[in-house]
Structure formats: C-alpha cells, structure tokens
C-alpha cells in the first residue's frame, strides 16, 4: 500500500511539474506586498467570472487527459479506478501548485453529484453525462434545499408527477450554488405526499436548459451572487432521468451527502489560509502598532492555538491516509474548526483594524479583510450547519441517542 502511494505521488508530481508551476508560499509574507484579497466567495464581475469558469474547465480537461480527471471513477466512464485515498493524496499534492481554481466544477458536481449519478443513474444517463462532467464540459449543481427544507432536507416539497414516459416537476429550490454555470442539476422532489417524509422522495437529473427551469441569482451578504433560486415550472423530465427508485430518492440523497469530500490538507493552502498565518497576523499587528496590546495578544494566541492544532489534526489525518487509513471523526472536527477558525480570525483582524475595516482608507491589506468578514457566516451554515454537525458528531461518533422523532407528513402536503 505504502509503495503504491509513493509511486502514485511521484506520478502526480511528474504530471504537475510538466504542466504547471509551484504555488508561491502563501504563508511567507511581507507586509504591503502582493495581492491583499481576502475573499472566500467570488466577487468578480460577470465577464471575469465567465473567464474564471473557463479556466477551470480547461484545467479539468488537462487533468482528465492525463488520467487525473476522475481518480476514483470507473475506467468505462473515463475514471482511473483508484481509491479515495489516491484522490485525497492528489488534492494534497496539487494544492502545492499554482493551478486554476476548479471549485465551480469540483466541489459539488464532481465531488458529490458525479458519484451519485454513478451509483444510481440508468446506463444511458451515465454514458451521456459522466465523461462530459469529468472532462470539464458539463457542470452540475445540487437542487436540494428549498425555502421549507434546509437542515430538514427530507421535507422537500417540489412536486414531481408522472405523465406518460415523463415526469412533470413544479416547485422552488434555493441556495443553489453554481446553478448559473450548470448544465445539469440533481433535484430532490416529492412524489408521494402520503408516505413518511423520507419515503416519498424521488431524485431526478434535470437538464438546466429544459423549458420551465428558471435560474435567478441570489445576492448573498457579501454582495456577490454565487448561489441562486431555481424555479421549476412544468419542467418535463423523461423517466430515464430518474435516479434510483420511485420514492427511493432519500437513498440517492444520502449518497450525495456522503460524498461531500473530505477536505484533508487542501484547507492548508490558498489565500484563505493566509488569514490564519502567524506571519501575516504578526505583520498586521506591527503595522497597526498594536503588537503590545495585551488583550489582543491573548486573543491572537488563542486563535493561533486553534488554527495550529487544527492544522496538526489535518496533517495527522493526511499522514494516515498516505498509509492507507481512511479518515475518522477528525474530518468532521476539522470542518467545524475550519469555519470557527476563519470566523474568529476575521473578527480578530477587524478588531485590530478598527475603523479601517468599516471604511476604505485605500491602505493595502486593511479594508480588504471586510470581504472575509462578510463571508464567514456562510462557513457555519453551508454543507450542514454547525448545530447539525454537532448532532452528527455526538450521534455517530459518541453514540448518543437521537432526539425522539416527530415525523409528520402534514407540512409537506400543504
């Protein structure tokens, strides 16, 4: 196993060395130099955003041509047939290089929707979409959340009604990331309002250009619009676009949620990690003449302890992965801490900057932090809120009993 991993790692490095250059070290840092952007979400104007997505598609195509487009996928759909451990190892190594950010394609589409299609779709649909997705041609979004179904996802109310060989979908999805760039979306719909809520859901792959699909950008609190409302009005979807059984969509949804990829190691890189870099934070305190403020020093130390302990947690998980050991509960802990650490960093820095973060003085590295400050609330919500993550940790890892269910189908029907 270890030898296999070493060979794979070497192959990955050969590929990357041949196509791209090493990323600059984001932690080594000189005050006043380089890019001071501190954005988590894109805030690009539409034209630049399109170019950004184009670069992402292009890099995904190169990965694919070299055998790294879908490391865990089966060869008949253009995959490499290796393990999730290889996949994580690839990500960790790639994060050392300066490559196009493929988040638009990979986080949801390739990471979550692709494996779901593979597990549950009918053969024709797999042939049609899987190679296209992993080649960078098709982007997929997750049409799960609705105004009335967030944490309690099984309460989805979007209706699907059988009509001959087709299904007709009506309803509203919300918070749908990357829908504006997507060719397909995986939708959870209600097909049996009389069954218990988990047993009346059916999943469909919806072509986003089908008549009746309307994507309306939703502006988030950062000012940009990364997510959307998606209205489905009499959208006709052929039955072969159904994933899993009729009323068996909850199983399909679980596949998607389980494939939310572990983010081992990759969080250690990129401009966002700069927010937790001791060098950057200490430079900031020097530049603002606050380095001897005792209250701020104590907060900084607390913040760095958490950030560095989280890094140790990731490092250790990654090392075990290299030895072929699958990630354990530390990955949920890591996700939880990721949101908390960045939130605390953003507030700490804001408090150091004081008025310079409420109005732009034009000074390098000051008002730029407002972007991260405004983005952090999302990190405690998306992909399962902090409360839901804690429930999962307590129930799955510690074996604490679930809350007694109050299952009803009433709210679904109304």
């Amino acid at each position, binding site marked *: 196993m270890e030898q296999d991993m070493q060979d794979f790692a070497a192959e990955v490095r050969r590929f990357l060395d041949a196509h791209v250059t090493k990323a600059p070290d984001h932690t080594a840092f000189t005050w006043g130099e380089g890019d001071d952007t501190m954005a988590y979400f894109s805030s690009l104007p539409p034209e630049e955003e399109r170019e950004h997505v184009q670069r992402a598609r292009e890099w995904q195509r190169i990965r694919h041509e070299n055998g790294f487009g879908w490391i865990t996928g089966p060869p008949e759909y253009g995959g490499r047939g290796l393990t999730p451990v290889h996949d994580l190892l690839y990500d960790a190594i790639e994060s050392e290089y300066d490559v196009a950010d493929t988040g638009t394609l990979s986080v949801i589409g390739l990471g979550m929707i692709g494996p779901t299609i593979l597990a549950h779709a009918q053969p024709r649909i797999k042939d049609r979409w899987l190679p296209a997705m992993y080649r960078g041609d098709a982007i997929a979004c997750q049409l799960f959340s609705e105004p009335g179904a967030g944490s309690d996802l099984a309460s989805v109310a979007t209706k699907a009604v059988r009509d001959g060989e087709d299904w007709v979908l009506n309803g509203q999805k919300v918070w749908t990331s990357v829908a504006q760039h997507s060719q397909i979306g995986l939708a959870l719909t209600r097909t049996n309002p009389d069954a218990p809520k988990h047993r009346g859901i059916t999943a469909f792959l919806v072509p986003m250009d089908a008549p009746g699909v309307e994507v309306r950008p939703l502006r988030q609190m950062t000012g940009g619009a990364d997510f959307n409302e998606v209205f489905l009005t009499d959208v006709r979807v052929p039955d072969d676009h159904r994933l899993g059984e009729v009323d068996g969509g909850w199983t399909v949804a679980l596949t998607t949620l389980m494939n939310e990829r572990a983010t081992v190691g990759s969080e250690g890189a990129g401009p966002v990690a700069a927010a937790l870099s001791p060098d950057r934070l*200490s430079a900031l305190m020097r530049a603002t003449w606050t380095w001897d403020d005792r209250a701020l020093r104590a907060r900084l130390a607390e913040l760095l302890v958490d950030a*560095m*302990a989280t890094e140790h947690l990731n*490092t250790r998980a990654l090392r075990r992965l290299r030895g072929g050991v699958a990630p354990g509960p530390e990955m949920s802990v890591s996700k939880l801490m990721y949101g908390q650490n960045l939130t605390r960093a953003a507030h700490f820095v804001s408090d150091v900057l004081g008025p310079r973060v409420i109005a732009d003085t034009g000074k390098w590295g000051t008002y730029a932090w407002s972007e991260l400050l405004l983005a952090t609330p999302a990190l405690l919500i998306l992909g399962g809120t902090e409360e839901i993550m804690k*429930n999962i940790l307590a129930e799955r*890892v510690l074996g604490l009993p679930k*809350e007694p269910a109050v299952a009803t189908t009433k709210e679904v029907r109304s």
Partner: protein
Amino acid sequence: MTADESELLELRSSVREFLEAKSPEEAVRKLMESEPRFDPAVWAQAADQLRLPGLVIPEEYGGDGFGPVELGVVLEEMGRALLCAPFFATVVLAAQALLASGDSEACARHLPGIASGRTTATLAVAEDSGSWDPALISARAVPDGGGDGAWRLSGRKAFVIDGTTADLLLVVARTVAGPSLFAVDRRATGLEAEPMETLDATRAMARLTFDAVPATLVGADGAGGRVMAKVLDIATVGLAAEQAGGARRCLETSADYARTRHQFGRPIGSFQAVKHKCADMLVQVELAEAASREAARLAAEGAPDFPVAAAVAHACCSRAYVFAAMENIQVHGGIGFTWEHPAHLYFRRAKSSQLLFGGPAVYHERLLDRLGI
C-alpha cells in the same frame, strides 16, 4: 529507538492494562491521603514489569532509549488513570533536566538509578511566586571553600512535585554566572521539606528550605536558563499528553452517562443541550490529542518547529482538559458534584495542570514569543 504504529498500540494497551489493575479509582483515592503519595510496590512493578522509568532514558545510561512519542503514549494512559506515581517528576522533569544539561558525568551518576526505578527525582525551580522563569530565581549557590566542584545552596523553593519523597533534587539556583542547575541529595544536611496542601491531591507538592546545603553543579555554571528552556518544552509536551489522556477519559465518562441516565423519560444524551456539550468536548479532545501527539513527533524528529508545537500543545491541552473536566461535572448533574464521584478528581488535576507552569498568561506569551510576535 522508535516504535512503529503497532508497537505503540501494544505499549498503550499494556500500560492501560497495568494501570487498570494497579491504579483503579480506589487505589488513587487511598494514595491521595497517604504519605508517600504513591505505592512503592506499584512503582517497583512499573519498573520491573514494564520498564517505565527507563523508557526514554538513553541505553548508555541503562534505559531503553525510546523517545517523546512513546513517552506521550505512556503519559496519556497515566493521565487517564490519574496515576499517583513519581513518574512525571522523575522521568519528565529530572531526567530530562540531566540530559539537557549535557553533563555526562552527572547523567552517568544518576540516570541508571532512575532508569531502574530505584531512584526517584524531581526538579525544583519555582519559588514562592510559582514562576518557572529562571530570571526570577533568588535561591543562591556559592562555591564551597573545599573546591572540587562542591557548592553550598541556600534559599527557598516551592511547588516542588514529590519534593518530600524524591531521592534526588535538581535545583536551579543563582550563581555569579546566572541561574545554574545543581544536584542535591534529599538527605543532605540543611535541607527541609514540608508538604504543601494541594488542589490536586494526586500530585504531591512541597516547599523546600535550603540552608547552605551541599550541592553539585550539573552542567556549566550559568547554563540553567538554557537547560530550563529545553526542559520546559519537553515537560509541557509530556504534561500535554497527560492532559489529553485525562480529557479523553472525561469525554468517555460523560458520553456513557448521557447514554444511560434518563430524565423526562429519555436519555439525557438525547437532549441537544447535553448532546452539543459532548460534541464540544469531542472537538476539544481531538484537537488536544492531535496537538500533543504532533508535538511529540516533532520532538522525536528534532524538527525546528518543535518549540512552537510544544507551546501549541501546552495551551491547547490545558484548555481542553479544563473544559472537558468542567463539562463532565455538568453532564453528571448533582452526582458530579459529590466527593464519591471521580469527576472532581479530574477537575482538580485539570485545573492544577493548566496552572502548573504559569497558566494562560504565560503560555500564550510563550507561543507568541516562539513565533516572533
């Protein structure tokens, strides 16, 4: 020597098995009220059966030459069991001070006895203020007229772990060259040791008074500051392992209780307020283990970022243990507040461990200092 993953597992399970048999709660409670604060028979067995005192002593001095990672495993288990034993003071403080001094003669004289379990030892640094900062030391040593590396030591030390029982005392005292390390025999004339009442009765502490006590210089005259910096890194990482082990135990106890205790017709663990407390404890414990184990690994590798990792581990594990020990009482409700329940033993150990080397104000600054901030 370094153990691989499966050898570490084996070490852990044999230490755990030994401690479950030799240091169950009843034994801990009995020792808490005895003098000495440990069971010499159990200490001898730990030495004979598991060779624990010699675990990290180099082979040339009669030990088994293992490193910080193996030491961490043993300390996690000892912390978990609240073992009352001279291990921390002898192995983690005194032996490390001897090694850090670079004085091979002193090592050859004292370490074989420590490795075999025959000699117990401790390190006396703090005085009445409790600070471990060598700059604040006022105990003094002057050369003894007779020459031959003999000195006379005078002054007071406090918070000395196992100070009334340790056979060998390593004492930091000031000479004209600065803080320096000395070895003192506990039967030396002019030395008085008096037990201190402690928040955590599983770790004995004493106040020592030195009145022109014969002492031997260990390492170079004036090198005490450098030695202490090294020892503190190793000792805080050792302590961190103990803390992580204790915190893990508190989490397990709470989760067990939350699964079984019923109120309002359901297990209290099904109430989200309790559930989230347990999840928060789990997060802290996972971070603490990662921080202390990673610091131990970096120490074993002699990595340049070890001092930073040591400071992170000390802060992270101190906080995690205090948090877990407090929440453990809370999850247990009234029963957690009783003398009979072990929750307070962990609380006492957690709080006193956090403050042993100075507490948050000190360890936060140590981290920032190491980062050059």
